[in-house]
């Protein structure tokens, strides 16, 4: 398996692999949607995809252009209202995995998609805002985050907590009564990070094949901790790459 592939392809494949068959996944648009759709084609044909537009069990034949793409409604088991998706499906903890992107992520897995800069009222950059993420991060059984690793995105402390990860460390979620386990996995173009079992600090547990550890450390805005038994993500298989590229081609 020495096919050529990009770092983004490795990221999508690694994210897809994390989704187990027979689980349900609340899917954000962009990288999470790509990974979830790849998973359904590769190893998880019974992965239930839920989009916040109200599509339960969507089985799109191409990547949706938005979370409200008509393809999602046409292929869903049920299309429900937006209030219903949040109240009846997300809030009671029915959904196993919340799959989110982020603009900024800190070492305890807190997500910022609101503002860059310390002043909310006079931000350096105004980002799109919360969308469904705060409650996805709170209520899903666990949360996977996928984003490209660089020091601007991976910060010691997010400028604004849009979606709560592990707060200031282990125990914060329990103290707040948040039902889900929070972020259990961060997939990047360089490797995988998981919360340390003792501290909940995001720790590098896998490097993608061919990625240098120093590069991952340099791409992280905090002093990155590295797992004692750092593993190597297997490269994408030829089958995974074919499925991913077919998916992207069908969506062009």
């Amino acid at each position: 398996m020495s096919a050529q592939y990009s770092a983004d392809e490795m990221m999508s494949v690694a994210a897809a692999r994390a989704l187990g068959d027979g689980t349900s996944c609340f899917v954000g648009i962009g990288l999470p949607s790509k990974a979830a759709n790849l998973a359904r084609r590769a190893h998880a044909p019974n992965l239930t995809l839920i989009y916040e537009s109200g599509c339960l069990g969507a089985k799109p034949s191409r990547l949706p252009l938005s979370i409200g793409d008509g393809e999602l409604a046409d292929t869903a088991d049920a299309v429900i209202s937006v209030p219903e998706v949040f109240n009846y499906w997300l809030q009671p903890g029915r959904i196993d995995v919340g799959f989110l992107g982020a603009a900024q992520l800190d070492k305890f897995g807190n997500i910022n998609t609101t503002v860059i800069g310390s002043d909310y009222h006079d931000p350096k950059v105004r980002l799109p805002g919360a969308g469904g993420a705060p409650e996805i991060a709170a209520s899903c059984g666990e949360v996977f985050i996928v984003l490209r690793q660089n020091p601007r995105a991976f910060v010691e402390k997010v400028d604004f907590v849009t979606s709560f990860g592990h707060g200031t460390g282990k125990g914060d979620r329990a103290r707040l009564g948040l039902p889900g386990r929070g972020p259990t996995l961060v997939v990047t173009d360089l490797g995988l990070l998981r919360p340390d079992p003792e501290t909940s600090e995001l720790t590098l547990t896998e490097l993608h094949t061919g990625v240098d550890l120093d590069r991952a450390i340099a791409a992280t805005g905090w002093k990155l901790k590295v797992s004692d038994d750092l593993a190597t993500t297997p490269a994408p298989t030829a089958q995974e790459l074919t499925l991913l590229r077919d998916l992207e081609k069908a969506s062009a």
Partner: protein
Amino acid sequence: MAELLSLEEAVDRLVHDGDTVALEGFTHLIPVAAGQEIIRQRRRDLTLVRMTPDIVYDQLIGAGCARKLVFSWGGNPGVGSLHRFRDAVQHDWPVPLEIEEHSHAGMANRYVAGASGLPFAVLRGYTGTDLPAQTATIKPITCPFTGEQLTAVPALNPDVSIVHAQRADRSGNVQMWGITGVQKEAVLAAKRSLVTVEEIVDELEPRPGAVVLPAWVVTAVAEVPGGAKPSYAAGYYERDNAAYQAWDEVGRDREEFTKWLNELTGVTA
């Protein structure tokens, strides 16, 4: 009973300066034509409400129609940022824009409370986030049975809600299908409502997944074929993705935007 009006007359009669206006649509059936008619009629000081403000809200904000935006996610879906929105928030251009920011779950429940004639809704939301510190319309509430603490958000009751639907009959009964988002709640929560439709038909044949709004809860219906473009209307046309991408270029630059605006409003620079 809903009146059948032209879009121009409907906006003229229903939308006033200073109103709180919700144009809802969740990537599907976005009432773009109605939003652009509001720009043409130069409404000012509007409080705009929407879960997912996208390019038509970018246009309304860039045109200076709004003094406030109540929202949960503002972006050009699948493309990137709303540059007019960012310019208004970051640089007060063309006028300052106050924001009231929620999550989707909060906004959806605010519409539900509004549609239900309740002053507030209860949800598990915002816990641990920085949103409550910035948004006065998020408060704690205690369950009177279990003592558990939850979150309350106040009802949204827009002066006018505007949505787009596939069809209406001649009495003004409205039918929409596919992804219908919070459109029903937005209409039921509002004091007045306008529904633009692809076509007016003699009879609304039942359809799987269809939501029907009876004529007696709709103020006006306007036939506006293509009124949701460049978004899509299931059964009528597809999303024009190129237009979303093209907006990124137009919206990015004040001069480009002003040209676009002059063209829309018929002003020759």
